């Protein structure tokens, strides 16, 4: 619990979160190294999504601290946390269905856009130039995630795999330093999940730290630097994929008979 080291982007300490009588999280101390891909795994109900909701401001923890770049972000609102450089995706895809692919990404730039009511209503040339710039940046981002050919489609017309990719793209638009991905590969077929994990790798190459929750062991073992295992709200293990695969406690508590599956 000492001083913040500059390599740590996110520090979670003594976190307690209960819903009524249910203890969702109980002091899972987590440190996320800058530039790493850290995965959080655990059986259903282990508290993974609750943890994400706390980090991104959707839930306020009962106790404990959440520090991002050395500053406490506990209790801040989601839009404030987004401004500080944390962006996220959702377990159930939460795209803006009533908007096009391009508009979804453009919304990701929201924190950097001119938001003056009067200027927007008058549509001044300064605003138009700014809008064009955002549009260009969004198109570049679409190229990076490989969806530029579908820019004009309504978001809900994309297949699930591309919706997940688009959601990552939208989250990237706010140029986060920490990107939280909630089950980016859930429901995807082999090709789609391969595409998703290469995208995640490419994002890390650009220097963005990634924190992800995932069930797909293949994806996790392939891309993570560090894995944190949660069970009933507590941290039961933490280490590299190899260490986790060999960890007896993890295999017993979480993987059980499926231990073999991990070595696939």
């Amino acid at each position, binding site marked *: 619990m000492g001083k913040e080291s500059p390599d740590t982007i996110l520090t979670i300490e003594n976190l307690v979160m209960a819903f009524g009588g249910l203890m969702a999280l109980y002091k899972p101390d987590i440190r996320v190294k800058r530039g790493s891909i850290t995965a959080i795994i655990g059986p259903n109900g282990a508290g993974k999504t609750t943890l994400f909701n706390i980090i991104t401001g959707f839930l306020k923890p009962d106790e404990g601290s959440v520090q991002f770049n050395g500053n406490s972000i506990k209790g801040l609102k989601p*839009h404030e946390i987004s401004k500080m450089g944390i962006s996220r995706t*959702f377990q159930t895809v939460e795209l803006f269905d*009533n*908007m096009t692919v391009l508009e979804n990404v453009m919304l990701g730039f929201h924190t950097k856009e001119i938001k003056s009511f009067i200027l927007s209503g008058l549509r001044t040339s300064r605003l138009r130039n700014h809008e064009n710039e955002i549009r260009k940046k969004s198109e570049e981002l679409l190229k990076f995630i490989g969806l530029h050919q579908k820019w004009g489609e309504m978001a809900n017309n994309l297949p699930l795999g591309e919706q997940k990719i688009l959601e990552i793209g939208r989250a990237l638009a706010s140029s986060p330093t920490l990107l939280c991905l909630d089950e980016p590969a859930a429901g995807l077929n082999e090709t789609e999940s391969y595409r998703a994990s290469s995208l995640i790798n490419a994002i890390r190459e650009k220097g963005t730290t990634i924190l992800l929750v995932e069930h797909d062991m293949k994806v996790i073992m392939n891309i993570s630097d560090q894995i944190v295992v949660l069970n009933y709200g507590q941290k039961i293990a933490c280490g590299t994929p190899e260490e986790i695969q060999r960890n007896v406690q993890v295999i017993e508590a979480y993987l059980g008979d499926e231990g073999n599956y991990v070595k696939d």
Partner: protein
Amino acid sequence: MLKFSRIPVLIFSVAILLFPSIAQLVPAISHYTDILVFAGLYCLITIGLSLLMGYAGQISLGHAAFFGLGAYFSAVLTTRYGWNPWMVMVAGTLFTSIIAGAVGWPALKLKGHYLAMATLAFGIIVVIIFNEEIEITGGPDGLTRIPGLKIMGFAFNTVERYYYLVWVLVLAIFLFTANLIQSSIGRALRALHSSESAAMAMGVDAAKYKLLVFIYSAALASLAGSLYAHYLKFINPSTFNIFFGIKLLIMIALGGMHFLWGSIIGAIIISFLSYEWLQYFEELEILVYGGILLVFTVFAPGGLAAIPHMILEKVRTRK
């Protein structure tokens, strides 16, 4: 992309511009200009409401009250204290905006039916105040002899002159609002409507935007109220009662709340229904409105403005 094509707006503007001259030539429709003045005033309200309901997804039954606040603010200060009507109009819009902010800040934390109930209650309270504060508002009898509007010696003292004043304002507000919808603010509003949590995660301050649009729509209603008072020169509380609040919703449901121009179509049609075509129904008028609301919610929930899209969609799925 959400784009407003200029041609329909241009055609509509020209039609509005030419209408009074045409109406003058045809005795049977010469009084339509007068009806369109009221329609224009309602448009000011429905444009704001359509932004609030169709784009930001918030229901308000209280906009009749904001309309009334503007009207009474103008009427009281110009008749009793002889203040300049234009100054009062601006001050009234600011005053109503502040009230809207104070009401909206807690109310917008509510969702769906609860928000509708809260705004409904606000509307009822305001009308009670209009009725009971006789010393200021004149009570149920209302206020008379409200001065007309004039600017540098030019008086808006004919129906045609007032018609142009109102409709130029409607077109300006329409363009302003259309621009707003296409801007980052409009995108944020549509995003909120679609997935509030995702919008918040992308840095959209949901509470701020809802309040901002609520205030904007209230300010427009207030402006319409001031213009109404100076046009009719007489106001009483019954104009601003809850039935009018619901009528505003019917205008939007009929026109289509997801398209800005739907709010204009709805306001015009309902104005003609209530001032012209449904005159013989008298009190039964309300049944017709109920019927319209029912038919549209069941068969065309997107309103008139969405019907071309519905047909296109049908044709496409046939193939």
